């Protein structure tokens, strides 16, 4: 596909995503923050359902050698970077998706967060230009490089290649784990709802005048 074609496909995909996220109020930050702080799981459940579908879809196509998986080495920087990101998204009250979507709704705070995300990226580029860590894509080998705190590259396709087990098998295992988490959340919600019903029934009984 030509570069222009790719840009058009990306724009159409982004537009539909923007519309669906705006209408559903989905927020990745809320999916994690609300589960941790408020024990509410509206967004967490949606995230888990998406991950189950994607795991089956991606690993299914990887099994037959189709798809365009991400290809770069990972390491300590992957954990540390997302840790910093996780703190930042809770403080900003928005993630990479909701900054764009809320900006589209006229939220000036989200636009401000977006601008400072750009500033943060530029500041990082200054530091990287001095220490060259983590390694640039051109110097990635796919193999562990402990000196640079890199573990290399592995996904369902490389597992299939090394172990001779179809990628979809690993995908089904991961999807089952995600579904187990989803079911545990549903049970927790049902228990919460039951307690709520009982406490309301108790309050109504107390409010009834004695005969």
């Amino acid at each position, binding site marked *: 596909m030509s570069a222009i074609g790719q840009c058009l496909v990306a724009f159409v995909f982004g537009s539909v995503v923007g519309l669906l996220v705006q209408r559903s109020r989905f927020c990745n930050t809320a999916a994690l923050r609300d589960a941790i702080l408020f024990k509410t799981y509206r967004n967490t459940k949606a995230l888990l359902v998406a991950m189950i579908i994607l795991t089956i879809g991606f690993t299914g196509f990887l099994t037959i050698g189709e798809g365009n998986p*991400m290809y770069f080495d990972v390491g300590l920087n992957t954990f540390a970077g997302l840790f910093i990101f996780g703190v*930042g998204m809770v403080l900003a009250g928005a993630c990479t998706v909701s900054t764009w979507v809320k900006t589209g709704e006229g939220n000036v705070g989200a636009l401000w*967060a977006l601008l400072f995300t750009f500033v943060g990226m530029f500041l990082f580029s200054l530091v990287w230009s001095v220490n060259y860590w983590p390694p640039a894509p051109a110097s990635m080998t796919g193999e562990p490089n402990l000196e640079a705190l890199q573990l290399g590259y592995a996904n369902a396709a490389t597992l299939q290649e090394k172990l001779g087990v179809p990628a979809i098998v690993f995908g089904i295992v991961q999807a089952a784990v995600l579904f187990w988490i989803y079911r545990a959340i549903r049970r927790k919600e049902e228990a919460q709802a039951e307690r709520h019903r009982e406490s309301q029934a108790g309050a109504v009984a107390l409010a009834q005048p004695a005969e």
Partner: protein
Amino acid sequence: MPTEFFKKTLDPVIALTAIAILDIFMFLLIGAWTVGGGETMMTGLIAQVFMGDELERLPFWTLVFDPDPTYWKIYISLGMLFGAFVSAVLSKEFYIRVPRRLSEWVMITIGGLLMGIGIRLAFVCNVSTFFGMGPEMNMGGYLAISGILAGAWVGSLIYKKILEG
């Protein structure tokens, strides 16, 4: 009914199911949904406007992200902005909201900076974590999910402290 669609809040499970199916098509055509890469390219393009050729003195912008306006990931973000704007206008939910308290501005500024630094340090954003690497069973997906969960937990503790004053 299309008008009904813009009156009610959509169940996020339905929205995310649709997004996941579209993301599988994206994975087959170009690559899975991602936001951080496009944002970095936009940062480079904006920096180029202000700095011109001086930007090339920073190796990051030649070795890691050479500014290129035809980088497809940019257009996912612009599409999200456009889609959200159209949706907000059609559902009469578009209006200018400005944070009122200074503490909110401070938190958003620090949060934005940390998100930008974190994305570039990791080479991955939250979208690639949950909608790309994780489902591809990439080793980085597990590192990233562990990192973002730990970060969100620490962030939530800080947020709670601030809320409690």
